[in-house]
């Protein structure tokens, strides 16, 4: 895992974490810092299948 990224995500304010951070052409909408932080920390959050797939694809690339 990219610990430097995790460190910065944790430093971000709640408002900053709620802003879009990643987009894709898979039709999944935006991923926020909060989405990434939840996934990196193993928190269970409901998402659409497409968005879940995108978040997991992003996090996988941080491993």
């Amino acid at each position, binding site marked *: 895992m990219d610990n430097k990224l995790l460190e910065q995500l944790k430093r971000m304010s709640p408002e900053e974490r709620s802003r879009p951070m*990643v987009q894709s052409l898979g039709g999944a909408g935006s991923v926020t810092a909060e989405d990434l932080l939840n996934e990196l920390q193993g928190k269970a959050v409901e998402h659409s299948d497409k968005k879940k*797939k995108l978040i997991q694809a992003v996090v996988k690339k941080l491993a």
Partner: protein
Amino acid sequence: MADSSVFLYVKPDYDEASIVYLKLTEPVRDYAQSIGYTVIDLEANDAMPYNIYNAITQYDPAYVFLSGHGCETLITAQNYEDVFWIKPGCEDHTQHTDMISALSGRTTFLMSCYCGQDLAPAIFNAGGENVVGWTDEYTWVVDTDYEPIDDPFALSFFDAPNYYMSLILDGVDISQAFKQTVDRYNILIASWSKWIKDNPNGNASDLARSHLSISLLAHDRDVMMAIGQGYRLESTSTGTGINPIILLAGAGLMGSLYMQVSGKEE
């Protein structure tokens, strides 16, 4: 033979990703115009399947630039309408049109997610001159504090694909264009590494986006593929190599058989 002076540019705009960020592909259209191509420009509500097929029939473009949401077997146009498709299509799509033979003899750029897996090889096997696409999510980092055209994060993600298409329009060989595009990705990654090194006390939002840009640019670089006569090009995990593949179109084979130079079958 397709008209090598004609470039078809397709850019839908119906959701945040397409309305806001596909603007960052416009330098390709502008570059084509600047070097003398006849550009057929289908944007927004003009980027509909019928108009795309009609433009291909009417103008016979040698170069087709498609952008939009997609999956392994499908690329869409305006309003998520299927435009080029092979079975089974995407799970939530029902309006299927199989028109990939329309891309025969043309260079096709699939600016979309996952299309490099199945659709790009299918277009090539249907007679496509060469095709480029991405085999996984095509992602980019955004900072909505900026206008898209000023967003340094988003801009860096569209730079390399735009560069590839510009090289192809310049007549650069597909393998050279691919290699130079991988190099371009590496330069972009290095620039974010340098920014982090030069700004150790930057704000958390910028630093997080910079770290993420390094990872996701490497991702986009490593899932880019191009397929043409005699080649299937993919970057290596280091992003510096290309794996040429010898095309073995043997009689009696179903479709085409590809074999890496190393002898490993795909």
